[in-house]
Structure formats: C-alpha cells, structure tokens
C-alpha cells in the first residue's frame, strides 16, 4: 500500500441519493489499503431550511432523515478498517445526528465510535440577529426567518480528525471542505498553503455530487452512452501529498469516468473559473488539465490557489408563502387545443391572484419563461397527448388553495375529456445571502459522548 496516497470516497451527492452507494466504495477503499475516508454530501441550498423546520416540529430531528440507511451497511467495516467518515448530514442538528449514530453503533453491537460535531454555522439565533441586520439592512425586516447558516470551511473538520475522531458530523460547511478537511489532517499542510488547498478543493468539488463525475447525469443514449446506469459506481479521489487527484471508482460498478465526464463536473456550478470561492481558498482552474490515465481513471492537474476570502457566505432562508400546482390531461384529437382552452379558463377564473404559469407537458413545459412569452409564441402543434400544468405562488394559503379547486372543477366545467387531475400545495422558502466576518461566526468542534 502507498501511504502517500490518500483515498477519499464519496457515497452521497445530495439528500435522497442512493443508500446502497457506500458499500462498494468502502470495499474498494479497504482493498486498496492505506489511509482512507468516506464522505457523504447531503445538504443542498434549501435542504437546511427544511431540516430547521423538521427540528422545530421535533427537537431530536433536523439531521439527514436517511442517516441510518446511509450508515448501517458500512459502519462496522469503516470502524474495523479505519475508514473515517466526514459528512454534512448533521444539517440543522449535528448533535442529534451524532446521538443517532451512537444508537446505530449500539444496535449493530459495535464499540462506541469517537464522534465529533462541527459547530458555528448556525447563525439564526438571537445573538446573531444584530449581525445579520447589519449585513442585510432593510432586506431582513419582516422576514419570517427559518434558517441562517454560514458556510464553514475545513479547519474544524481537520482539527476534529487530528483529535482522533472516527466520524465528523457537520452542518453547513462548503461541500468541497468535506474532502479538504481529511487532506489537511492527513498531509499536515499549512493552512495557508493555497495551492494545495485549492487542488484538494477541486478534488472535493469533483466528488461532492457523487455519480455526477462517474457517468450519472451524463448519459444520453446514442450520443453519450454510459454502461450500467442502474449500478453506478460512486467516485473515489486518490490525492497525493501535493493535492493532485486522480478520480476513479470501485471495480465492477457501472458508469464511466473519462475526460468528458470529469470536465462536465469540474465546471458544474462554477461561475468565474479563475475564482471558485470557498471558505478555505480561492481556487483557479483556468489552467487546469484533465488526463485519461486508463479506463475509469482521470487525473486533474494545473489547479492554482489564492488566499481565502476574508468573509463567510451566509444563506438566510425565510418562509415566503405557498406554491400551488395543478395538472390535468387531454388526449386524442385536438388535445392540445382543449388543454390550451383549459389554461385560458384558469387564467380568467384566477385573475387577480397573481401570475399564473401554464405549461403544456408534451408540447413545452421546461424551456419556457414564467411570463408565458415562449408558449404564446408557439402555435397549436396538434399534439394528441398533452398534460396541462399550472402553478402559482401566493402568500396566503387560502388563496393558493383556490388554484387546486379551480383545476379540479375542470372535470365538469372544463373542455371535453379532461382527466387525471392532481393538485399539490407546498410551503415556499426564499433565500437572501450576505457575508459575515469570520470572527462573527467562529467554528469549532466537540466530541459527543455516548449516552450513559
């Protein structure tokens, strides 16, 4: 085994990812030998606000609901073979997540793991309100605040690992920091070694969406073919002491890693490639190169780094009202014309409640603008199987509910042959962003001991 190569496998790219992902990754890490970590990324922009709402309803909730399903298949092997786990699955309640992992270890008859939680991201409490007020100004007034979280970096993760944690549970940390923390701890880089931090950051960036680098979200039959989509392998980054990485996946799994899958993921959610900002570093990929080393092995090089931003990004989520949606299908002769008439009926019935979006699923339902300019520009295409979908936002629940009633009423009051009405009502969350100085949202770790 090569002690100079650090392997980091990623077994989740979002909350709701496949729960059978981790086992092949852990088996591959164990087979490779050498130092290894397993990360799970489960926290999209709005996931944390939903977790905060869950915690309000149940003080022990608010962490990733699939946490036991993600860990149960691999926890014993990880602990037995020293594969340490780092994740943001703590969401709005890292301590609750840690207690749940202790309970899971007990259920499985395992020795108690050393579990650290990373804190400091939650800035929604009253103590932080004046800071948010100063940062956001009048934009904060009148907001029904649900969550406020600073994106923390890798340092507290590294510190927790250096203190002996088997598992590090975070809330909001920047996604790539889940990989940078283990690299920092393992290689002992200086915390201002911007070049190496940037390289590890881009390794984390390639890992953070799970199979999006191994052929997931890439396949397009006859154009971009990917084998084994039902059993995609999740990615493993082999990181060297300089931070360069090679992306690979467990043997025998489906998917594809080549220069093209890696380039697509490298640029995913990047804005200025000269300045990819994280709390750890400013990464620059303008000179980056990818090289195919062999089947399902691609090396990334040429990443450069600059000093980290002085401030931390904060996302503030707030309740904004309700999203109402309704659908009804039309099929057969003149179906599109009947669906268009139904949309017109709904516009008249719901006039005054705010903008109503109408889509003709099967004709145009995604590329169009909310204002309807695109759809209006298309003449009746003669489609014979069309599902009308309408959507509306409203601050008041009772007004939003009117959309559902009007769509349902199309059964008897609408055009001929409409069927399959479905309606949905969901609470909406808005986001505003600001920055805080690092000292206004300090981060740290602590161990959560097993309950007596």
């Amino acid at each position, binding site marked *: 085994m090569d002690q100079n190569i650090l392997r980091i496998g990623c077994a989740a790219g979002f909350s709701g990812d496949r729960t059978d992902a981790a086992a092949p990754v852990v088996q591959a890490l164990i087979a490779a030998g050498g130092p290894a970590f397993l990360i799970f990324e489960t926290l999209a922009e709005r996931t944390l606000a939903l977790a905060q709402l869950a915690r309000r309803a149940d003080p022990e909730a608010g962490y990733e609901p699939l946490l036991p399903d993600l860990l149960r298949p691999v926890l014993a092997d990880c602990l037995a073979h020293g594969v340490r786990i780092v994740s943001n699955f703590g969401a709005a309640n890292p301590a609750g997540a840690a207690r749940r992992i202790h309970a899971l270890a007990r259920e499985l008859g395992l020795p108690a793991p050393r579990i650290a939680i990373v804190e400091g991201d939650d800035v929604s409490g009253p103590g932080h309100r004046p800071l948010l007020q100063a940062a956001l100004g009048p934009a904060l007034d009148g907001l029904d605040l649900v969550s406020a979280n600073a994106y923390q970096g890798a340092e507290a993760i590294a510190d927790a690992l250096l203190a002996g944690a088997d598992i590090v549970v975070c809330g909001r940390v920047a996604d790539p920091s889940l990989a940078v923390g283990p690299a920092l701890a393992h290689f002992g880089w200086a915390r201002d070694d911007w070049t190496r931090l940037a390289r590890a950051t881009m390794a984390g960036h390639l890992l953070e969406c799970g199979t999006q680098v191994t052929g997931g979200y890439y396949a397009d039959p006859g*154009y971009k073919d990917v084998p084994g989509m039902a059993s995609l392998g999740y990615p493993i980054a082999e990181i060297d002491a300089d931070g360069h990485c090679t992306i690979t996946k467990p043997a025998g799994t489906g998917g594809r890693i080549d220069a093209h899958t890696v380039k697509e993921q490298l640029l995913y959610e990047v804005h200025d490639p000269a300045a990819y900002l994280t709390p750890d570093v400013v990464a620059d990929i303008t000179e980056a190169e990818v090289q195919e080393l062999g089947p399902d092995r691609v090396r990334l090089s040429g990443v450069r780094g600059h000093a980290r931003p002085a401030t931390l990004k904060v996302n503030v989520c707030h309740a904004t009202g309700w999203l109402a949606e309704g659908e009804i299908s039309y099929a057969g002769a003149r179906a599109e014309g009947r669906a268009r008439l139904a949309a017109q009926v709904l516009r008249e019935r719901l006039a005054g409640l705010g903008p109503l979006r109408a889509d003709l699923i099967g004709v145009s339902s995604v590329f169009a603008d909310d204002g309807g300019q695109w759809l209006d520009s298309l003449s009746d295409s003669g489609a014979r199987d069309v599902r009308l979908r309408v959507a509306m936002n409203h601050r008041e629940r009772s007004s939003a509910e009117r959309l559902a009633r009007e769509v349902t009423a199309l059964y008897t009051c609408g055009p001929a042959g409409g069927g399959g009405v479905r309606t949905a009502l969901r609470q*909406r969350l808005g986001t505003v962003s600001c920055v805080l100085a690092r000292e206004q949202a300090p981060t740290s770790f602590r161990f959560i001991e097993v309950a007596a």
Partner: protein
Amino acid sequence: MNTVTVPLYRAAHGRTGDKGNRSNISVIAWHPALWPLLLEQVTEAAVAAQFAHRQPARVTRHVLPRLQAMNFVLDEVLDGGVNDALNLDSHGKALSFLLLELPIQVPPALLPLLAGPPLEPPH
C-alpha cells in the same frame, strides 16, 4: 468552401448548474480541433439571443482553452431561482439542452469529428 449547419450538440456537450437566480452552462468541445469554431461562434451575443425569452440580465463567457471548454454564466435567467420560480424545472437543469441547440457552421473537413447521430433539426 461550403460550411454545414449543425446544432451545437454535435460539436460540444455541456451541463447546467444553478445558484440562486443564476445559471451556469458549460460547453465542452468533443474534439480539440472543434475548439476554434466554438470560440468564434458560441459568443455571449449568440447565447443571449438563444435565451432571449428568459431575459437574462447578463451573459458572461469564461474560456478554458486547456480544457477546450467554456463556461457561460447567465444572470437572472431562472425566474427567481429554485425558491421563487414557477417552472417545473426551477433549477434550470434542462437549459444546457436549449443552449446546445444553437446552430453552428462547420467546415466539411471537421464533419468527421462531430459526435452523435444527426438527430432532427431544432424546431
């Protein structure tokens, strides 16, 4: 020499990402020899025109010659983004496919480098 008009997806592939009300779409050459065509034809103006109905406040092109890739950033193109848009695809995940329908002109010598079957022309 007569050029041939093909949709951009024959010469490049891409993926969309989103943050807030901002979309980024990568355009990655299928072959290094196709890169100069992309640089010349897949401009900020061409992309802005392709997305005119979504009324982007600004379209910015970043180029990465070593990857033969470019990254387009489209501001305020998501009708408010994942939290506000009424679009079924509030992330704008499908928007790379709209961009990749942009027609481009390819000289005959480069036609063998194009990817994929020659599917139906864009409507």
